[in-house]
């Protein structure tokens, strides 16, 4: 299960430079695509690969590309979403910082496929040092003739622009990102029209995540079928997982989709297991917005079979007993973690990051934060637990963008699986508000 597609050369000294990247076979995908393939041919390979959006939504990238409208005389845009802000997720940061040319090469191949002559990389503003790394890589690629006018004598022109965000989680939502790129507040747009028809500057636009775009080069070099052969079924290829929390080896790992969760969690190749002397309590498998799972549902499905690192297996059982792969933000909690405190923390995050357009989200996230705050601080009542469930239900599905759902799911799932812990905070306020106090009642630990 050690197949590496994106991080194969990550440890080669100097891989962040054009020369070393080129020596490791870099930019051959640009040569192959531009010299020997039609744009449609490139789209076809990406479709065959079945690679799914790695930002969290999991929508097939090739299909997204094929929806792009192509009216005569209207520019088309490719925008890379590098606004990585989902708590628990730091893979794009890692990839862009360490191997920037992988993204630049992917951008050129993808832009060629879509017929875009000006493409953007929207990077969260906090990563200004990464923006400088990307700009250097772009200058190197341009000097080598892979960007600019008449690339490789083909007549195809492409310019890449790196654009900084300003600190707003919501801009990871693709239409908010486009608004932001136009110099406005990051308020998501109503859909339809979808960006494929009216996106940046009201022109047809594709927005893809960093990791998704970075796969394009390997797919062109090796073929879509070869990519589809990696992984399991509709979870094809590899995925970058950002592992954090109470594990021995936090970090970014590339896994072939289909690795058992248990192996990923305990193998020395990856997380290395729970830190010494502690036990697994809970897992957030795909970034803060996906449902939290208790220990007994992490490594096994409800029917007892091993749970795998795939889109399908992680969501097996729906929200009753499953979760989502999401962005691959793998946050591990041991028995020292207080689920109530963590849920309050995540709720505060979503309240802070709500753009304020839709009242269910603007008001609901505030109420959830407030109610969780009072439970965590010893002033809750039993009624509050049902109130939280009710508010979460009223936000979910009732907003323009998925931030509302993302705010509701962590709360609803924490109560679903850890209700005892919420009740204990309410019935034992003096004990529960001691520093570092954690519910020690009956609970499955692994």
């Amino acid at each position, binding site marked *: 299960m050690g197949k590496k597609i994106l991080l194969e050369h990550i440890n080669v000294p100097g891989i962040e430079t054009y020369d070393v990247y080129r020596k490791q076979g870099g930019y051959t995908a640009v040569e192959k695509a531009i010299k020997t393939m039609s744009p449609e041919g490139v789209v076809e390979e990406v479709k065959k690969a079945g690679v799914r959006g790695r930002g969290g939504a999991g929508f097939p990238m090739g299909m997204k590309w094929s929806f792009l409208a192509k009216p005569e005389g209207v520019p088309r845009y490719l925008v890379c979403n590098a606004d990585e802000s989902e*708590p628990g997720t730091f893979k794009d940061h890692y990839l862009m910082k360490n191997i920037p040319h992988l993204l630049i090469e992917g951008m050129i191949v993808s832009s060629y496929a879509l017929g875009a002559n000006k493409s953007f990389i929207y990077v969260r503003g906090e990563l200004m040092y990464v923006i400088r790394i990307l700009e250097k890589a772009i200058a190197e690629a341009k000097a080598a003739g892979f960007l600019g006018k008449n690339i490789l004598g083909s007549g195809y022109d492409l310019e890449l622009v790196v654009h900084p*965000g300003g600190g707003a989680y919501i801009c990871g939502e693709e239409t908010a990102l486009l608004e932001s790129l136009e110099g406005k507040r990051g308020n998501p747009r109503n859909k339809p029209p979808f960006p494929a028809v009216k996106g940046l500057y009201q022109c047809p636009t594709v927005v893809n995540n960093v990791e998704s775009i970075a796969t394009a080069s390997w797919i062109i070099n090796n073929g879509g079928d070869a990519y589809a052969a990696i992984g399991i079924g509709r979870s094809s290829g590899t995925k970058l997982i950002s592992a954090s929390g109470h594990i021995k080896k936090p970090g970014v790992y590339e896994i072939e989709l289909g690795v058992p969760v248990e192996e990923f969690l305990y193998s020395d190749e990856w997380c290395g297991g729970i830190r010494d002397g502690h036990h697994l309590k809970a897992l957030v498998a795909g970034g803060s917005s996906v449902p939290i799972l208790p220990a007994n549902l992490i490594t096994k499905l409800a029917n007892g079979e091993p749970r795998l690192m795939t889109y399908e297996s992680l969501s097996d059982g729906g929200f009753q007993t499953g979760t989502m792969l999401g962005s691959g933000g793998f946050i591990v909690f041991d028995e020292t973690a207080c689920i109530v405190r963590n849920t309050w923390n995540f709720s505060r995050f979503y309240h802070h990051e709500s753009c304020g357009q839709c009242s269910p989200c603007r008001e609901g996230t505030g109420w959830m934060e407030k109610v969780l705050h009072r439970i965590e601080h010893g002033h809750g009542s039993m009624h509050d637990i049902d109130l939280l469930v009710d508010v979460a239900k009223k936000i979910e599905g009732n907003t323009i963008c998925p931030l509302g759902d993302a705010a509701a799911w962590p709360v609803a799932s924490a109560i679903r699986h850890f209700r005892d812990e919420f009740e204990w905070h309410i019935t034992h306020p003096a004990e529960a508000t001691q520093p570092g106090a954690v519910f020690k009642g009956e609970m499955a630990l692994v």
Partner: protein
Amino acid sequence: MTETQNTVEFTPERLKIAQEMIDRYPAERQKSALLPLLHLAQEQWGWLSPEVMDYVGRMLSIQAIEVYEVATFYTMFHLDPVGKHVIEYCRTGPCCLMGGEEIYDYLKQKLGIQAGETTADQKFTLKEVECLAACGMGPVFQIREQYYMNLTRDKVDEIIAELSR
């Protein structure tokens, strides 16, 4: 426009960068350069005063309100004067699991200030921010473009000592 507003201007070097930033976007779409220009302005002045925002608006031929509504939406922009070093401390879940709250309390105690405040010597301003996309290396804070990761009490002592010089 008052006299003082007219004195606000980018340095010649930044003025050149600003023009390059504007030129990156398609014709008639210069408003796209707003976020890059606000970052550039904050780099020069440390924070965004109404005069500075008005100046950026004039550069892009947009209304002042179009600048204000953007500057107030995004958390990276400082709308009040700040100290020499702005410490942007991650308060989000994964960092907290790694002891982020304890280190944060230590930092506040060491500086003698709360979130949003500036030390009396104008050296440090403390801000709480959300996830900085470095969760595997938490606790984390950022000062300008620099990330400080895997924070411990000792590391905090070293960083503050270094920056206090």
